Structures are given as structure tokens and as C-alpha cells.
């Protein structure tokens, strides 16, 4: 073949960008997310996010259930951190009823919510590593550690994943006998395991190379997109509702708020690791100062709050979870809006994805740590 014929072939070859559909069934979309990715070779030119494949209409269901009946549905929003949703919902209803729960209930709620945060971050970090291609091993390590917490919750309320534990006015049950000993053991067990996980990832050159500088989210953009939770803190905004708008008894505990610098995938991972440590610190303090008494105020099966509205946001493991409840004085909520953290966190993906490689899209998506049940509701 002569050189000139090579030139003619070159002129006749067309390159074009093409669309690739990722999902709704795809191993790294964390459920049923559907991404349309426009690729130029390996580089992402455009990304369109389609959600709603798990839209169950929970807000509509809420209008047809009594306040107490709705608690199990909150479990199934963010199913990796069900206790966090339970807590957000009952706090919103309690705020609507202007009700204050007992100190013991507050402490137990804090303990449970923080343990749930540890469990949730374990899943978040290890699925992230799975998305980076470390097939199954980190994921299974994370699930092995998480199993301890799940087991404790199983003891406390009788289910492994969907707990239905918080009640309006308190809790379903008090902690069972020996639970505080178990919680202390979990703290003792978990600390070295978190160090283990961190050394598995942080000292790995490939992991570092894959995450550092990938999907950097600036401070301003994060706030503008209403990104919350660890993702916001990774961008360097020191904002944590547990500190800035304390609910329950978080103001009594001493803990740090880890923040990142660049807001890249590495920072998002690092913040989660550090948050697990801080959560264990909170649990340790709370279990030490656990007051005695009856945790639950009896409110009756049917609750009829006065007509009015309340908006309560809590720091769920994935960010700020808000419940906006409008009551018309009947036994059913008139309207309930769930402002879910993952929804806003995912919206930023199409912004972050432009110009990076397709493998990095998976990396950024994993580091945002989304749960489809939370997004689609």
C-alpha cells in the first residue's frame, strides 16, 4: 500500500460520537439508574441521567396512611440507611405535634442513627471500590463488617434491613438486655476494621490514581446544586446539621466534622472513612451517658396533629433528609414531601461527567454514593 492510498483512506474514514446506554440494568448503577452517555472514543461528551425506574409513589401512599402506618414506608426509601429515614420522619411528626421525647429515647436514637451511618458508609465505600474494579473483595469485607451492626439491629427490632424501629414519641422497644455491652463490643471491633479498610484502599496506588482529581466538585457548585452530606463536606464546606442545627442531643457530644479540600472522589471517600470514626466516637459517648427511664411516650395509635405544617431536616448518612408535612387536622397527612439527599446529589453527575473518561463516570457515580430508592421514592 502506498502512502497516498493511506491518506485517501484517512480522508474517507468518518469518526463520530456515539450514545451508550448504561442501565437500567448495569452492574455499577446501584440499582435501576439509567444513564445515556455520549462518547467520543472513551471520553464522555454528554451525559443524561434518567431516573424514576424505582418511583413507587411513596408521597401518594403517605396521603392514604395514618402517621404511624407510614413509618415502615420510610424504611424503604434509603434502604441502606433505614434507621436514618425512620428518625427523620418521626422527628418531623414530633415537630408538627410540638412534642419532646424523653432523654433516653434521644440517646438511643443517636446511638442507632450513628451506627446506621457506619453501616451505610461501609456499604458506600466498598461499593465504590467495587465500581473501580476491585471485584467483590472490598465489597464483601464491607458487608462482613456491616453484618455486625445489622445483627445488633436484628436483636433490637427483629429485622435485618427494614427496621421500623422509631415511633412517634419514642421507640418501638427499649434496648434489649445486654445491648449496651454489644454496642461497646461493636465499637471495639469496628475501629481496627475501619483502619484495615482504609489501609486496603489508601495505600493502593491504583486506587489513588483512579480517584485523586477525578470528578472534582467546587465549593460553590456543590452549594448551588444543593449537594449535601459527605459530598458537600468533601468539597470543603464545613456544614453538618448535627453541629449547625442540632437536633436530638447532638450538642452534648464532642465530635469533629471532617472536610475535604478538592471535592474529588478521593476526598469523598476520605470524608466517609473519617465520618465512621467520628460516629463511633459519638456512639461511645452516648452509650456512656445513657440515661435511665422509659424511652417512649404513649401517643395512641391514631395521631391527629393540629392543622399546620412542619419541615424537619436531619443529617442522614447520605446528606440532608427533609420531611415536609402538611396536616389538615385529620389522621392522615394532607401532603408529605420527602426531600431526599441522593436526589440532589445525583443531579450534579451530568455536570461532573463532562470531559472525563467513561471509567471515571462509574468512579464519580460510586463516590457520590446514591441509593435509587432514595432518589425515586
Amino acid at each position: 500500500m502506498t502512502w497516498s492510498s493511506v491518506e485517501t483512506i484517512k480522508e474517507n474514514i468518518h469518526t463520530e460520537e456515539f450514545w451508550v446506554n448504561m442501565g437500567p440494568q448495569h452492574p455499577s448503577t446501584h440499582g435501576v439508574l439509567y444513564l445515556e452517555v455520549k462518547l467520543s472514543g472513551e471520553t464522555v461528551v454528554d451525559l443524561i441521567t434518567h431516573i424514576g425506574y424505582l418511583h413507587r409513589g411513596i408521597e401518594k401512599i403517605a396521603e392514604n396512611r395514618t402517621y404511624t402506618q407510614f413509618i415502615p414506608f420510610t424504611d424503604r426509601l434509603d434502604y441502606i440507611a433505614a434507621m436514618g429515614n425512620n428518625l427523620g420522619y418521626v422527628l418531623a411528626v414530633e415537630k408538627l405535634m410540638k412534642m419532646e421525647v424523653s432523654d433516653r429515647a434521644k440517646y438511643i436514637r443517636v446511638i442507632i442513627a450513628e451506627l446506621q451511618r457506619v453501616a451505610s458508609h461501609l456499604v458506600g465505600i466498598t461499593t465504590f471500590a467495587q465500581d473501580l474494579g476491585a471485584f467483590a473483595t472490598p465489597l464483601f469485607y464491607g458487608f462482613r463488617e456491616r453484618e455486625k451492626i445489622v445483627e445488633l439491629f436484628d436483636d433490637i427490632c427483629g429485622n435485618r434491613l427494614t427496621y421500623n424501629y422509631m415511633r412517634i414519641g419514642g421507640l418501638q422497644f427499649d434496648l434489649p438486655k445486654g445491648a449496651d455491652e454489644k454496642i461497646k463490643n461493636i465499637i471495639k471491633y469496628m475501629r481496627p476494621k475501619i483502619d484495615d479498610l482504609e489501609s486496603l484502599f489508601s495505600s493502593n496506588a491504583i486506587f489513588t490514581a483512579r480517584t485523586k482529581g477525578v470528578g472534582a466538585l467546587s465549593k460553590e457548585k456543590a452549594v448551588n446544586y444543593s449537594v449535601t452530606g459527605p459530598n458537600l463536606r468533601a468539597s470543603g464546606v464545613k456544614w453538618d446539621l448535627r453541629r449547625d442545627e442540632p437536633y436530638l442531643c447532638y450538642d452534648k457530644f464532642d465530635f469533629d466534622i471532617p472536610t475535604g479540600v478538592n471535592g474529588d472522589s478521593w476526598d469523598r471517600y476520605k470524608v466517609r472513612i473519617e465520618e465512621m470514626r467520628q460516629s463511633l466516637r459519638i456512639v461511645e459517648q452516648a452509650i456512656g451517658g445513657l440515661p435511665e427511664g422509659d424511652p417512649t411516650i404513649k401517643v395512641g395509635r391514631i395521631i391527629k396533629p393540629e392543622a399546620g405544617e412542619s419541615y424537619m431536616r436531619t443529617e442522614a448518612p447520605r446528606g440532608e433528609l427533609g420531611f415536609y408535612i402538611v396536616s389538615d387536622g385529620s389522621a392522615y397527612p394532607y401532603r408529605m414531601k420527602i426531600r431526599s439527599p441522593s436526589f440532589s446529589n445525583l443531579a450534579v453527575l451530568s455536570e461532573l461527567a463532562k470531559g472525563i473518561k467513561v471509567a471515571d463516570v462509574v468512579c464519580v457515580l460510586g463516590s457520590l454514593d446514591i441509593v435509587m430508592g432514595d432518589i425515586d421514592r
Partner: protein
Amino acid sequence: MSADALDRQIAIPKESLLETARRLASEGFDNLHCITAVDKNESIELIYILYSINKHACVTLKTQLALDDLAIESLANIWKSADWLEREVYDLFGVKFLNHPNLKRILNPDDWDVHPLRKDFSRPDLIKKPKY
């Protein structure tokens, strides 16, 4: 600082929403936290919850839309988070947001023509609510 956004409510007519929003944004309200709507039978109420991370301040904007004129200016050009939140309100309530970059259904299938969170939406197999 104020703990509850609903304690500071501003009711505004829908024409002045964009102007108010611009002013609030310039005053440091950098975070449009939540947009939602409530079907009040005769009108649809839109609720915007805004926060300022730097100043620890919050404010709620409320505006009423008549059922025969469900259209309002979009805030997606000021706060990016409004993009998806407005699409959700459009999907579930049918409120049209003018000048929205991409006003399509977000949660429900594209070919639906109902807005399920409206009070007049009904489905035959709903369970009858017991009266308490």
C-alpha cells in the same frame, strides 16, 4: 440562626418570584434546598425553601397558582438544584416552569398525561381510607 425555615415565610405573588429570588440570591441565599407543591384543591401552592450556608439563615417562599394557569418562572438559572426539583413538581403536579432548560417528566414515564399527586387523581384500586 434560625432552626426552622417555616418560621420565616414570605408569601409572594407569582409574578414577583423571579425578582425576589434574584434579590435573595444576591443577599447570600446560595442554597435552594427544596421545592415542593401542595394541592389545595382550588389552587396549587408552591413552596421554596432556601438556606444560606454562610449566614446560617433560612427563608421560605410561598406562592399560589390558580388551577387554570399553572405556569411560573423557573429558578433553574439562579440555583442549579432547581432544575430537577422543578421537573419533579412538573411531573407530579403539572406546574409548568417557564424558561426551564429541560422541562420533561422525571419520575414517571414520558408518555403519561396525568399528574398523580394532584388531589383529583384517582385510581380504581385505591383502598378506602377508614375514618378515624
